[in-house]
């Protein structure tokens, strides 16, 4: 390799980079503002019966009607639509955020595995709902998926690091358990689980949006708090160990956060497609970003654009949300390959 191989950077002028940075920051500011509005809606919806929030909630819905009026849409006047949008916007932030670390640690399959584990959790949750009347399948999914995450972490510590085989066994095994529980549960009483498989906006509820809001705030806070350590471990785990970072603890934090994000995203994206949102925006960002922080920013922006485009498609044409979002994300990925001067960068995905 020679010293002047950096063709991408050399061609870009400083002012070009500044404009790009400004655009990225502006995009993030918009994303941040929109997500705060969404969280505000979720909180107001939750507290609408309380006198303190009822006025504000009504004002919010009136603003929604105006928005529909000006945009010529039939979306923002409905509370359930706000919940679905809120869910989408939050997924568009947290999934690429965690995905940035997963992809560059070559742990992309972990997200898929934890989604399948969460599926078993949902199945058990539905079964528990029919048997004992505790109807909170997402909370079951959360618990099972976090246990699955800790299991994956244990396996990775005691076998090859995030080796394909133990992960594949876990992925298929948990899905198998899920199918058995559903089959058995159907005998007890009808269970419809298809929405969780493919992603379906109509299964988003006020309580699941609330859960996602809480999980998103936690995930963003943890990433901000541990960003430095996670970057170091992602880039050079051995050097991080020499620097006496607690690598095992940070790895555990990362897989548990992955489980949390997967469970929060599974209603909109579906178990089968949830890993796409962890990977595709990051793959797109990695094509054109200069540094890791920029990759993370661009991943969130691509994630957000995919969500907005995908939801618009899904709502307009009555399509499944998961498939629509992932297809839009792939369009962005292909576009970044066109933009990148290096051609396709080989990101390993085992």
């Amino acid at each position, binding site marked *: 390799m*020679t010293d002047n191989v950096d063709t991408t950077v050399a061609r870009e002028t400083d002012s070009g980079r500044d404009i790009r940075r400004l655009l990225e920051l502006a995009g993030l500011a918009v994303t941040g503002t929109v997500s705060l509005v969404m969280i505000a809606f979720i909180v107001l919806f939750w507290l609408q019966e309380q006198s303190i929030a009822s006025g504000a909630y009504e004002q919010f819905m009136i603003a929604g009607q105006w928005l529909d009026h000006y945009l010529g849409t039939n979306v923002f006047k409905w509370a359930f639509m706000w919940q679905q949008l809120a869910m989408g916007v939050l997924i568009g932030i947290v999934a690429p955020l965690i995905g940035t670390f997963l992809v560059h640690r070559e742990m992309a399959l972990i997200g898929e595995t934890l989604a399948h584990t969460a599926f078993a959790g949902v199945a058990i949750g539905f079964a528990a709902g029919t048997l004992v009347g505790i109807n909170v399948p997402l909370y079951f999914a959360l618990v099972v998926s976090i246990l699955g995450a800790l299991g994956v972490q244990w396996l990775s510590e005691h076998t090859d690091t995030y080796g394909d085989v133990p992960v594949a066994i876990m992925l298929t095994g948990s899905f198998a358990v899920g199918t058995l529980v559903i089959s058995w549960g159907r005998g007890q009483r009808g269970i419809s689980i298809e929405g969780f498989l493919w992603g379906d906006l109509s299964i988003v509820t006020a309580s699941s949006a609330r859960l996602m809001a809480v999980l998103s705030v936690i995930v963003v806070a943890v990433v901000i708090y541990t960003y430095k350590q996670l970057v170091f471990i992602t880039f050079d785990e051995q*050097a991080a160990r020499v620097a006496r970072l607690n690598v095992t603890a940070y790895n555990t934090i990362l897989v548990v956060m992955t489980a949390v994000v997967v469970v929060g995203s599974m209603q909109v994206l579906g178990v089968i497609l949830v890993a796409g949102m962890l990977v595709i925006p990051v793959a797109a960002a990695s094509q054109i970003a200069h540094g890791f922080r920029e990759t993370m920013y661009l991943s969130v922006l691509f994630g957000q654009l995919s969500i907005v485009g995908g939801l618009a498609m899904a709502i307009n044409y009555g399509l499944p949300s998961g498939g629509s979002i992932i297809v839009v994300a792939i369009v962005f990925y292909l576009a970044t390959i066109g933009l990148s001067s290096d051609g396709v960068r080989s990101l390993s995905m085992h």
Partner: protein
Amino acid sequence: MSYAIAVENVSFSYEDRPVLKDVSLSVEEGDFLGIVGPNGSGKTTLLRIMLGLQPPDSGTVELFGTPASSFKDGARLGYVSQHSTDADATMPVTVREVVRMGRYAHAGIGPLNEADRESIDDALETVGISDLADRRINHLSGGQRQRAYIARALASEADLLALDEPTVGVDADSVEAFYTLLDDLNGQGITILLIEHDIGVLTQHASTMACLDCELYEHCETGQFLESDALEHAFSSARVVSSQQLAAGD
């Protein structure tokens, strides 16, 4: 004189294959130790054990007077591993971001402060790559990359720099410049441990040499080392001969 590293009677095996047998050596603070030996002689394993990355099966290791396993002051240690990292080939990360990592052991979970940023700038300046700070590391040449890793260790103000074959794939001019940099750092009091294949270059720079092949054949000052027959012993040991025969299909 105090010791940066004290290894006593260390043995280590991978399953039933012994890699290190009863190795004892001490590295004084400010030493520049060159470690040589045939392929598979346990050099990297010894370095990992010295840094506390791997516990030995038996024996003890101390880093700056503290058992390596309980040594907490990671900021004092800098490590450049073999082939650096796999992630540096694909991961979008700038040179500055890599060098910043050197401050993470200092900063804990808080943000980096002005003093941290100064250390980062100084480290980039020292290794002569300030102008490359905003480039992606995988856009650099092998020699520039190694400088970035050294800068990371310098940014952490490490007292001990451990390098495992850092010049593999680096062109000859860059290797020479690299050694000059190591000499400078050693002159400033930084202890250096260096595993290197090119024994000729290494002996021109290291103040002490260690030669091992599972056992430690020699550990002494470089001048004395060159007069000894340690290399001949190590490279003609029964282990090496049998592995060469295996490689040749005998």
